[in-house]
């Protein structure tokens, strides 16, 4: 199935969860990344159980704390 991750459409196997996607995409500090699925926030507690489906759009929103 095709999923758009961070603006890029890629192929993933059926039944991939958001947690697995975070691992597949080698997301740094995944516990502290906000995930939006089809422009809705995914609660932390649902990251492991949310199954992705064809056409989903996922964004990873990273903490960025520097600036001074």
């Amino acid at each position, binding site marked *: 199935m095709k999923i758009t991750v961070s603006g890029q459409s890629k192929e993933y196997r059926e039944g991939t969860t958001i947690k697995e996607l975070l691992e597949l995409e080698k997301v740094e*500090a995944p*516990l502290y990344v*906000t995930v*939006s699925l089809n422009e809705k926030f995914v609660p932390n507690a649902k990251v492991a159980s949310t199954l992705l489906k064809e056409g989903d759009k996922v964004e990873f929103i*990273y*903490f960025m*704390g*520097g*600036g*001074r």
Partner: protein
Amino acid sequence: MGLTNEQLERYSRHLILKEIGVSGQKKLLASKVLLIGAGGLGAPVAMYLAAAGVGKIGIVDDDVVDLSNLQRQIIHGTPDIGKPKVTSAKETLHDLNPEVEVEALQEKVNASNILSLIQNYDFIVDGTDNFPAKFLINDACVMAKKPFVHAGIIRFKGQIMTYVPGLGPCYRCVFRDPPPPEAVPTCRQAGVLGAMGGIIGSMEALETIKYLTGTGELLVGYLLTFDALTMEWRKIKLPPARKDCAVCGSHPTLTTLIDYEEKACALQ
């Protein structure tokens, strides 16, 4: 009141922009902006806002200029080492544009002073380097109904978003709670390319000027991200404000400000 001949010349490149013009310039001259942090982000923001003729600029920072700051904090120079950053910044801004009033506040923002610091300003700019400060600025601005622009930079990456009360998600809607100390690197630990402050700080200055003059579309409800290694910008549409957000939601549970422990920059 009209603009003086000197102002007509100084701001001539603004005045010929139909989106700014005399009325926009007058708005800038009558505006008050508070910058929290006079470092990598705060330096370009302060300089562009002063050059643009923002009437009053407040700068809050408790730090003094250090040699390691000069790789990116272009508002300070080598002779300023050891000087309070707010003093050094005020001197640079005065040279740039003496008609701008600069309020130099050499202190650290915290839960007990931030509300009184922001209350006299129209727009707040986050130029801080740690999550406790970023959450504090968000929460105080939400509570005081003040618009602000958030930004962060690290290594070769940067992000920016704007909050306007009632119009979109706040920083806490997006990030919930500060990460535990050391869980996410900051630029002191991870490094940052100096020019990143220029890129992202200039974006903060743009958002500020656009807000003050009512020009264009703000990054409200969007997070703009930049990766200098690939030169890729992404404007990510954020979900709407969370109804259950602890600070901006319909039943806020966070009603007093929090001084989170600042350990994110342990490797100073």
